[in-house]
C-alpha cells in the first residue's frame, strides 16, 4: 500500500472523509486550520460525501453538529484551545444528550497570554464533561483512531474527542498508510444509531428533568463509558484484520528489569519510544485512552513489572495541583500495595521534549517524596 506524506491535520481530514461523514461544521483556529481547509478542498473536488458548513464560532460549530446528529447524521468538528473552551457548555450538553459526535482537538495552550505551542490543558480541562478522550502520538494514529472513533462513539452513544499535539503532530509531515475509500467504508459502515428526532414521533428531547432522573442518566452514562476499553479493543481487533494494525488503550513497552517507566500521552510518548534504547532501565507506558482512565490496566502493568518509579510526562499543569496525568495516575494506583514513586515532569506550555530532559528525569528522582513536580526547563 502506498504511503502518503501528510501532516497530522491532513490525516485527520482524510479519516473524516473516509468515514463518510454527513456534516462537518467547523470554525478555524490555529493549529487546526489545516483540517478544515483540507476538508474544504475535498468538498471542492467533490470528494466529500457530506456537507461542509463554515460557521461563525466554535460554539455554533458544535451546536450545528448537535442539530444534525439529533436527526441521525454522522457529524464531525475540530477545534483547539480557545475554541474548545468556548464550546464548553455545548460539550457538556452533547454527552448528556448522548450524541455520538467525533471531535478532533488539536492541543494548544489556552491563554492568557497568547501562546501557540501545544499544551494539553485545553482538552484535559474538559476531562469531566463525559466525553471519551483518546490521545494520538503520531499522524498514523491520528488517521486510524479518528476513523475508529466513529464506530466507538456510535456504539456507546458517547461523544469522542481525539486529541493530538499542535505543531508537533498537526504540522509535521509523516508517512501514513491511508486505506482506500471502499475498505474504510467497509470498516466504518453507515451510521446505525437511532435518530432522536424522528419526524412524526412526538418527543420532548432533553427537556426539564428531575434530579432523580438525572441520577439514573448519569449512572447509565458512567456505566456505558466504562465499557469503552472493551469496545475499543473489539474495534481494534476488526481494524487489525482489515488493515494489519491495532492499538491498545494503554500500551506498555517495558524491557525486562526496568524499574522506571515513563507515562506519556501524545507526541511525548513517541519521543520516549524513540529514545528508549538510550534510557537504561526505563520503559514506556503510552496512554491513549484517557477517558475513561484505564486504571485497572495501569495498576496491572505496575504490579506486573514491579515498577518503583513512574515518571509522568505532563504537557500540562493544573495550577496548584500539578500535571493532570500524574493526578490521574496517582488516583489509579491508590489501591496498589507497592505504589511506585511518582515523578511529575511538567512541560506545560509545550516546550520541546529533548533527550536531555528525559535523561535527567531518569537520573534524578524527585527531591521530596512522592509528589514533587519537576519543571521541564530545570532539566535541560
Amino acid at each position, binding site marked *: 500500500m502506498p504511503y502518503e506524506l501528510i501532516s497530522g491535520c491532513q490525516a485527520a481530514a482524510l479519516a473524516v472523509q473516509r468515514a463518510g461523514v*454527513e*456534516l462537518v*461544521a467547523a470554525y478555524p483556529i490555529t493549529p487546526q486550520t489545516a483540517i478544515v481547509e483540507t476538508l474544504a478542498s475535498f468538498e471542492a473536488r467533490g470528494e466529500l460525501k*457530506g*456537507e461542509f*458548513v*463554515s*460557521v*461563525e*464560532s466554535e*460554539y*455554533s*460549530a458544535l*451546536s*450545528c*453538529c*448537535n*442539530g*444534525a*446528529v*439529533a*436527526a*441521525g*447524521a454522522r*457529524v464531525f468538528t475540530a477545534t483547539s484551545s480557545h475554541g474548545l473552551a468556548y464550546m464548553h*457548555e*455545548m460539550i457538556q*450538553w452533547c454527552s448528556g444528550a448522548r450524541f455520538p459526535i467525533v471531535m478532533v482537538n488539536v492541543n494548544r495552550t489556552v491563554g492568557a497570554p497568547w501562546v501557540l505551542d501545544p499544551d494539553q490543558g485545553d482538552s484535559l480541562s474538559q476531562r469531566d464533561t463525559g466525553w471519551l478522550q483518546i490521545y494520538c502520538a503520531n499522524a498514523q494514529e491520528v488517521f486510524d483512531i479518528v476513523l475508529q472513533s466513529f464506530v466507538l462513539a456510535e456504539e456507546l452513544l458517547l461523544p469522542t474527542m481525539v486529541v493530538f499535539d499542535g505543531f508537533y503532530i498537526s504540522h509535521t509531515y509523516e508517512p501514513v498508510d491511508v486505506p482506500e475509500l471502499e475498505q474504510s467504508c467497509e470498516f466504518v459502515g453507515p451510521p446505525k444509531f437511532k*435518530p*432522536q*428526532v*424522528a*419526524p*412524526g*414521533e*412526538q*418527543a*420532548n*428531547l*432533553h*427537556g*426539564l*428533568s*428531575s434530579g432523580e*432522573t438525572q441520577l439514573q442518566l448519569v449512572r447509565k452514562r458512567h456505566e456505558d463509558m466504562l465499557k469503552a476499553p472493551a469496545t475499543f479493543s473489539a474495534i481494534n481487533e476488526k481494524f487489525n484484520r482489515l488493515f494489519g494494525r491495532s492499538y491498545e488503550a494503554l500500551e506498555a513497552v517495558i524491557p525486562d528489569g526496568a524499574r522506571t517507566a515513563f507515562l506519556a500521552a501524545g507526541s511525548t510518548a513517541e519521543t520516549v519510544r524513540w529514545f528508549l534504547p538510550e534510557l537504561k532501565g526505563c520503559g514506556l507506558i503510552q496512554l491513549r485512552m484517557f477517558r475513561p482512565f484505564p486504571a485497572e490496566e495501569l495498576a496491572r502493568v505496575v504490579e506486573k513489572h514491579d515498577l518503583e518509579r513512574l515518571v509522568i510526562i505532563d504537557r500540562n499543569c493544573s495550577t496548584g495541583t500539578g500535571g493532570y496525568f500524574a493526578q490521574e495516575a496517582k488516583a489509579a494506583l491508590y489501591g496498589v500495595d507497592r505504589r511506585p514513586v511518582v515523578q511529575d515532569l511538567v512541560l506545560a506550555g509545550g516546550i520541546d521534549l529533548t533527550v536531555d530532559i528525559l535523561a535527567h528525569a531518569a537520573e534524578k528522582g524527585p527531591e521530596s517524596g512522592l509528589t514533587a513536580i519537576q519543571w521541564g526547563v530545570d532539566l535541560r
Partner: protein
Amino acid sequence: MKVTGYSMENEMMYSGHNACPGCGGALTVRYLTRALGPNLALAITASCWSIIAGAPPLTALKCPILHCPFPSAGAVGGGLRRGLNAKGHYDTTVVVLAGDGGTFDIGLQALSGAAQRNEDYIFICYDNEAYMNTGMQTSSATPFGARTSTRPYPLFKHGQKKDIMRIMAAHGIPYAATASLAFPQDMENKLRKAQEMKGFRFMHVLSPCPPGWGTESSDTIHLSRLAVSTNFYPLFEIIGGNKWRMTYYPEKTRTPLKEYLEAQRRFRQVDETTIEALQEEVDHDWEGLLKRVGTSPEETQEAPEK
C-alpha cells in the same frame, strides 16, 4: 380567521402544558404548529417554552422537540435541517423557537451567522420583552420605560428596544415578518407563506406575559391588539431584505400610546414627559416604516386582512 376544523385532532398542541394562564407564548406555538404542522421538527432554546413543553415523560406537542442551550438556537436549526436532509426527510419543516433572549441577546451571534449562511429553516422569536422564564430580567428587547427585576422601581429600562427586524433585513434573508396574536389569520398567512420558501425565514411575534408585564391574564389578546393599533408594533413583512410590505393598517384614528402603556403595571412609573417622548418615538418609527413600505398604502398593500 375562519375557525375551521373545530376539532382537537387538527391541533398540534396538547392541553396540560405548563404555561401560565393567559400566556402569549403558548398561543404563539399553538398557532405556529397548527399552521406548519404536522410534519414538523422544533428546536427550542432556553426560554419559557423549555418549561412549557412539559417535563419528560410528558411532551406538549405532537411533533418532536429538541431542546438546546441558550446561545445555540441559530446554529442548531441549521444542523437539524441538514441532518434531516441527510436522512431523506426533505419535507419536514424545521422551526427554531427562541425567546427574546435567545434572539436579541445571547442568541444574536448564532442567529446572525445562520441568517448570513441562509440556513434553510424558520426562526420564530416569541418576544415577551424580558427574560421572563428566569424572573423578568431586562433584555435588549425590553422597551424603554419598562421596569424589570434588574431595573426595579424607581429604575426602568433605558435604551430603545433593539430593532430586530432591521437587523434581519440587513442580512438580506428571503423573508422576515412580524405577527400579533390578535391577528391570527395574518399570522397564519405569513407562516404558510414562509413555509413555501427556502432559505432563512424569520418571524417576530409579540407575546404578552401577564406576570411580567403586570397585566391580567385575560388581557393577552387585548394587549396584542392594542400594540398594533397604537403603531407600537406594526404588522409587516420584508421580502428579500429590501421589499417592505405592510400587512395591516390600523384605522385612521390611531390609538394613543398612553392607552397601551397604562394597561401594564410595568410602565407605571413612566411620567407624562416620557410618555410624550415615547409617543414621538413611535410616530417617528412609523413614519420611517411607511417610507420603507412605499409611497402610498394602496400601492403596496393588498386588501387589509384582519
